[in-house]
């Protein structure tokens, strides 16, 4: 198919290609009225610095926000739930602005007061994409502020979730505990030096001073910094199993008890240095491992997608109403680009519903009056009215989300099961040592038992695990795979069956392939087709118009559109019709209607266009590579038209399933799991939500992390999907590194134990042994995992 190549013009505001229209203003070009308006607003207030900091910093304004969209913000009840603080003059409010992406955004949003003097201050949190605004509510209102943000291209995203729950604050206690542990550790080390180096007889009195100082400094470590270990150990004991934190908590308490005894009885200096050191290192590991991606949410439910309020029509008046207050029987008004929050009957208007958010299918579906619309679709086009059939809580979408009542059983990390054996062995050794020494020298038995318990603490295992996990999470994050937590690494490593969703995952929503079957036609006819198609707002027409767009525009006469069937008109003295098979040929087609457009020119029928989703680049190569190690299935909600094509591309052993409902996908994964397989699900839309939850590891694919993704164990940026096999390899390396460093730590432990069992382990050796073993393990795990990442060709640094 030949298309004319033209030089493209970039919009000065958003940097996007000017496709449909080009607007000139002085020496600047804009792709749409919206972008131009934003520029004018900024120009008037002397804020054009915005365009100097970054090239084309804006986001496209092609989809205009209707004027009274934020009228619900005048509602007192809604206001109260959004506002964080209010006094007689000022109101503090925080808006989520998903458009924030560069330093220009930051600059402009923090200069809001220059646009509107009622704004007292505004401060951006870049990582959370939030702006905290303080404004004077006597002269301005919440709605005005929201509209001000919208007018400069930053439309606040206000969802039902804002109404229902406060955002969880960042957990800072771990950082405090780490800080305190670091402080105590450093000071105890300082105070211990005289002890290590030996004191002269004359200075013995100072020894007490240092020892008691250490005792006091170790108290915060014991009582505050070690809290996470006690809590985790207690939690596991309550569930009647031993996790790795149990022996560690025991070792911390034993070390302190033994040291306390030594100091008070004046028999030694204790092991305060080792105790605080190991707690400090373990906390560092824990902080690294639990570093979360603030800007991402893995726990989204439907409330974060739904608007906070919709317009209800009552007695011919439009009343903005908070979503939970919508009742069955209400008539609601849905505007262009708004999400349908309830199941309802279409009573007025032409519905063109984009279900991409539910199914991943990007082409909108046409619905006639009287048809039932399910929640989750987005209306594109004119306003429609709906009669509410089911409330938000009962709608199809909500049930889709909640249909998995069973929670996944808490997974036990291999580290925990490993440490359990380890703990029993250590207990046995301690008992044997005690028995042995009680025969020979009763006084030494207590010493030996405590030393064994202290030295054999599996902290090295915990350290290697948390540092490796932390590093793996960080490297994967730099490569655009964001995992929910460290446990997910293990889950992914054990997977042996990968299930892909097709639409939106293997295919991209951003491009379509247009094929023409029939007699080839001339450029002139192509131009006519484009000119005719440009008249219609139907998504298929838009695609054709874009594909065949030519310089010399033809005028269209006698344009006629039959909704849901096709369009016709006279272009360049030719009668051209585009539409469904029935509209053009008079016969219903055997092929699937949704993706074919028939053409007729002057009554003759050259052929039809079929529009297919475009497969992501290199996706087939990637699946072929994965096929060598994993079983692969592909589930699709679409019809069978792609079966032959896919089977030819991927080979016969890839299982393909079509016409899959969300529930079918979930059942298929359950079925695989009952057969003993570990399943990873890779999907994108809400129709995969159940399957993503059910799978051992559910990865949501998204075009951009600004988009919303269903609840999952991990989020992968779509353009990285073709590197999946490298990521999977890398997660497998994780376990190997942990095990290797565990073997090393056992070696240390054996050396330590051999001293301890003989009863000759001096404080000096213990003091050197413990931190050095920890440090070497940290270095080993970090080095090994980073090296492996390099071998697999993963990036080390974040690429912006």
């Amino acid at each position: 198919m030949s298309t004319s190549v033209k030089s493209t013009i970039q919009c000065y505001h958003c940097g996007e290609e000017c496709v449909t229209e080009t607007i000139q203003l002085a020496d600047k070009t804009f792709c749409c009225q919206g972008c131009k308006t934003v520029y004018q607003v900024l120009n008037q207030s002397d804020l054009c610095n915005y365009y100097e900091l970054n090239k084309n910093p804006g986001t496209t304004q092609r989809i205009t926000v209707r004027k009274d969209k934020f009228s619900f913000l005048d509602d007192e009840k809604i206001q109260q739930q959004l506002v964080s603080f209010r006094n007689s003059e000022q109101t503090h409010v925080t808006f989520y602005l998903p458009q924030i992406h560069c330093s220009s955004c930051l600059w402009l949003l923090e200069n809001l007061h220059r646009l509107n003097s009622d704004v007292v201050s505004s401060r951006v949190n870049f990582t959370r994409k939030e702006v905290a605004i303080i404004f004077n509510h006597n002269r301005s209102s919440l709605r005005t502020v929201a509209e001000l943000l919208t007018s400069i291209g930053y439309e606040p995203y206000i969802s039902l979730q804002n109404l229902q729950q406060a955002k969880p604050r960042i957990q800072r206690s771990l950082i405090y505990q780490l800080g305190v542990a670091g402080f105590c550790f450093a000071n105890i080390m300082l105070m211990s030096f005289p002890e290590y180096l030996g004191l002269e007889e004359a200075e013995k009195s100072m020894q007490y001073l240092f020892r008691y100082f250490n005792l006091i400094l170790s108290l915060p470590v014991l009582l505050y910094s070690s809290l996470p270990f006690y809590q985790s150990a207690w939690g596991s004991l309550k569930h009647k199993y031993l996790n790795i934190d149990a022996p560690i908590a025991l070792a911390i308490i034993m070390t302190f008890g033994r040291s306390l005894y030594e100091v008070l009885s004046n028999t030694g200096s204790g092991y305060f240095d080792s105790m605080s050191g190991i707690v400090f290192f373990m906390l560092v590991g824990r902080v690294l491992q639990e570093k979360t991606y603030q800007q991402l949410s893995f726990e989204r439910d439907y409330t974060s997608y739904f608007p906070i309020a919709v317009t209800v029509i009552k007695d011919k008046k439009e009343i903005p109403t908070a979503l939970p207050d919508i009742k069955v029987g209400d008539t609601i008004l849905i505007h262009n680009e708004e999400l349908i929050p309830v199941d309802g009957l279409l009573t007025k208007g032409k519905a063109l519903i984009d279900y991409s958010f539910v199914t991943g299918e990007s082409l909108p579906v046409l619905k006639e009056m009287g048809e039932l619309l399910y929640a989750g679709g987005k209306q594109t086009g004119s306003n429609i009215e709906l009669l509410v059939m089911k409330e938000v809580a009962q709608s199809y979408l909500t049930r889709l989300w909640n249909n998995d009542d069973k929670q996944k059983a808490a997974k036990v990390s291999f580290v925990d099961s490993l440490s359990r054996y380890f703990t029993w062995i250590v207990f046995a050794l301690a008992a044997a040592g005690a028995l042995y020494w009680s025969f020979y020298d009763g006084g030494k038995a207590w010493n030996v038992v405590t030393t064994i318990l202290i030295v054999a603490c599996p902290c090295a295992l915990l350290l290697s695990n948390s540092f490796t996990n932390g590093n793996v999470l960080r490297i994967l994050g730099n490569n655009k795979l964001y995992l929910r937590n460290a446990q997910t690494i293990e889950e992914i490593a054990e997977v042996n069956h990968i299930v892909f969703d097709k639409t939106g995952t293997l295919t991209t929503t951003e491009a379509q392939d247009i094929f023409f079957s029939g007699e080839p036609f001339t450029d002139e006819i192509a131009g006519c087709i484009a000119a005719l198609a440009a008249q219609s707002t139907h998504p298929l027409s838009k695609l054709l118009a874009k594909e065949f767009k030519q310089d010399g525009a033809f005028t269209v006469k006698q344009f006629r559109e039959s909704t849901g069937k096709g369009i016709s008109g006279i272009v360049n003295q030719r009668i051209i019709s585009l539409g469904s098979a029935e509209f053009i040929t008079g016969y219903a087609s055997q092929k699937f209607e949704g993706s074919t457009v028939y053409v007729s020119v002057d009554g003759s029928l050259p052929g039809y266009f079929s529009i297919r989703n475009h497969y992501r680049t290199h996706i087939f190569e990637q699946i072929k590579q994965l096929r060598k190690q994993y079983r692969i299935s592909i589930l699709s909600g679409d019809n069978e038209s792609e079966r032959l094509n896919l089977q030819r591309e991927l080979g016969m052993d890839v299982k393909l399933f079509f016409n899959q409902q969300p529930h079918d996908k979930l059942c298929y994964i359950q079925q695989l799991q009952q057969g003993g397989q570990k399943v990873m699900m890779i999907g994108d839309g809400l129709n995969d939500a159940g399957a993503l939850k059910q799978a051992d590891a559910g990865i949501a694919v998204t075009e951009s992390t600004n988009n919303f993704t269903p609840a999952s164990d991990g989020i992968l940026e779509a353009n990285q999907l073709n590197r999946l096999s490298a990521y999977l390899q890398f997660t497998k390396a994780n376990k190997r590194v942990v095990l290797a460093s565990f073997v090393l730590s056992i070696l240390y432990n054996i050396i330590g134990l051999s001293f301890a069992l003989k009863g000759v382990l001096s404080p000096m050796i213990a003091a050197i042994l413990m931190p050095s073993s920890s440090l070497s393990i940290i270095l080993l795990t970090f080095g090994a995992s980073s090296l492996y990442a390099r071998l697999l060709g993963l990036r080390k640094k974040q690429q912006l």
Partner: protein
Amino acid sequence: MSVIFLLLIASVSVAALFLGAFLWSVKSGQYDDETSPPIRMLFDQKPASSSGNSSETNSTQQ
């Protein structure tokens, strides 16, 4: 003896001061957003020509 005691107290209290500063900085949310402060400090503070006073941009919230 008493000199060493004094020195110990002094050194630990200086360290405690830094610990306090660290805890305060975490608590006041200075590490919540690590992206914007380095960008923010590079912005030129143009003297506002038409309206507003530019000092407000620097006023910290809460």
